[in-house]
């Protein structure tokens, strides 16, 4: 989905619907994954991005397949918004031969060369340099490609982010840093892990244009992304977006969340990016509740079908266990 969005003229109807579909797809994917996990069908840990859909949808909207992203352990939404195939993603969560990586990598390592997903990453901060490398490649190739790195507020405490900000600024690379600030690093609130919760300021100090946006408002995210991506494509260098948002679920599924205040969930549900955008679509773009119910149902169907197909895939075949340790063919 490539959206040319002009903040002056606002978001047109089709774009608005696309954004809704993108967010709804993520919400549904995550909800279904959560259900499957609760049912004991998904091995390992999974980390859901429910509540954070607007960041993924808004940031990825202006991106082409040839643009790059890197993301984190909480990366399903970004991968979906960037065009990752749902069925292969589900297959990977299940640990099936039909998954993106033959089931060998799991939820935290979705990658897809065909749509520029350099990879989700299970090391906090670990994917950021890779995105810088994507941006360097883009700059050298000179076709106006852009690289985007998603990471959390917790990653702002990893030194490697700061190294990358410095390099991106020095080399004027076409990269957009996107901090999904959801107020927690696992069970630790931001007040305990960041001396300055104003993450955008950490980037601004390198001379990188850095904005803070309401990460629950997909239009605000899109506006910021649009500007940052345009700047990158024009060869003007890096940008930074701090998107304030909410992690509705525990750090991982199964996290009892004892560390959370009771009313946090109430506050969050009032900031539901889906509900908010639903309201905009009906009030400003002339869609009816029924129109949107239809979209919801269609997406629900698509996700559940993908999940069912994935579940039905053959389990990963141990015979292939040691393939691809070295790349198999010259590229």
């Amino acid at each position, binding site marked *: 989905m490539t959206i040319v969005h002009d903040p002056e003229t606002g978001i047109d109807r089709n774009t608005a619907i696309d954004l809704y579909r993108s967010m709804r797809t993520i919400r549904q994917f995550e909800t279904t994954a959560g259900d499957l996990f609760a049912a004991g069908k998904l091995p390992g840990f999974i980390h859901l991005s429910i509540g954070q859909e607007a960041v993924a949808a808004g940031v990825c909207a202006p991106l082409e397949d040839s643009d790059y992203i890197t993301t984190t352990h909480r990366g399903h939404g970004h991968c979906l918004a960037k065009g990752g195939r749902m069925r292969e993603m589900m297959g990977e969560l299940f640990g099936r031969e039909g998954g993106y990586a033959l089931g060998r990598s*799991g939820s935290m390592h979705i990658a897809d060369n065909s749509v520029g997903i350099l990879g989700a*990453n299970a090391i906090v*901060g670990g994917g950021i340099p890779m995105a810088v490398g994507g941006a360097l490649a883009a700059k050298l190739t000179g076709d106006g490609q852009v690289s985007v790195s998603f990471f959390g507020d917790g990653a702002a405490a990893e030194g490697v982010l700061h190294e990358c900000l410095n390099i991106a600024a020095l080399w004027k690379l076409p990269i957009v840093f996107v901090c999904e600030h959801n107020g927690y690093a696992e*069970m630790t609130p931001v007040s305990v892990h*960041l001396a300055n919760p104003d993450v955008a300021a950490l980037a601004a100090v390198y001379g990188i244009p850095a904005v803070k946006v309401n990460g629950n408002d997909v239009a605000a995210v899109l506006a910021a992304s649009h500007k940052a991506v345009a700047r990158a494509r024009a060869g003007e260098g890096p940008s930074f977006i701090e998107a304030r948002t909410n992690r509705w679920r525990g750090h991982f599924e199964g996290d009892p969340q004892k*560390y959370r205040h009771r009313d946090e969930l109430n506050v969050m549900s009032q900031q539901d990016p889906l509900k908010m955008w639903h309201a905009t679509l009906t009030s400003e773009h002339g869609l009816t509740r029924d129109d949107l119910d239809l979209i919801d149902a269609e997406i629900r169907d698509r996700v559940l079908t993908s999940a069912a197909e994935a579940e039905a895939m053959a389990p990963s075949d141990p015979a292939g*266990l040691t393939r691809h*340790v070295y790349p198999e063919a010259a590229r």
Partner: protein
Amino acid sequence: MTALKYWQAINRALHEEMARDDRVLLIGEDVAEPGGPFGASKGLLEAFGAERVRDSPISEAAIVGTALGAAMAGYRPIVEVMFLDFVTVAMDQVVNQAAKVSYMSAGNFAAPMVIRSICASGRRTGPQHSQNLEAWLAHVPGLKVVWGSTPADARGLLKAAIRDDGPVYVIESLAEWSTRGEVPDDDEIVPIGSAAVRREGDDLTLVTWGGAAPRAATAVEQMEDVGVELIDLRTISPWDRDTVLESVRKTGRLLVVHDAVVEFGVGAEIAATVAAECFDELRAPVRRLGAPYAPAPFAPQLEAAYLPQPEDIASAVLETVKTVRKAS
């Protein structure tokens, strides 16, 4: 003796040592208020306060170095690097700094500190959360490396590590987290450098540790006609050469089993040492069983194929025992 889960035994060791010595500190991600990412530090904040039990940012290099500086200044910090895979972002502080401080200052400084990490091998956590990296750590002079496979050893080794005057890397098995075992009630430590002979036997010495140890025990339990001497190394560096060599001198056969990739793993050191030291006593080639040369996979059936399972271990034992030296 009390029956405790593995994580409870760790938790108890932390409580006991922090109560015994008020120079002991705990620093790490989610260790204080949340009581540890998997519960191992429950109650410590309440018992010992926010000065001694500290939640840290996600800054492994800095917190390992912070622990080191505090150790050099007279404290005895424990720093948690959540999963063993994450030590990759703190290797300089572990290897170039903590491990070398005593040597580089000719003993003028010491670094009485503990680094704790979980190894999540076997828990379907995928290629960046399941690595068995003990061989790297063991290759670093000045750094001791321990890994208890039972609740009692997890507690006893952690206590010993905290009391050690140098840096000790303590690995803990997430796969055993809820396994119960008898834990002594007294203040007993498990001395660093001493292996446990879990079972005696005359036909083959099976050396193992950490995540592989319970699977090796399962394999051996079922074997009736082969006399396997099962040694749980417990300390990987410095490893208990005497116990292993003495055993192989008796059995004439060695099988090392670990979850790490075979190539350049800890098994190589043990096999090479035994091959050299027991040259005349060996009745069969030294043998190593471990993960194949590949990153750790995620899917259950892949991970099961990747890690040595009781059946694999049993076959390796049987094959090794069958081998006889050709007449020379």
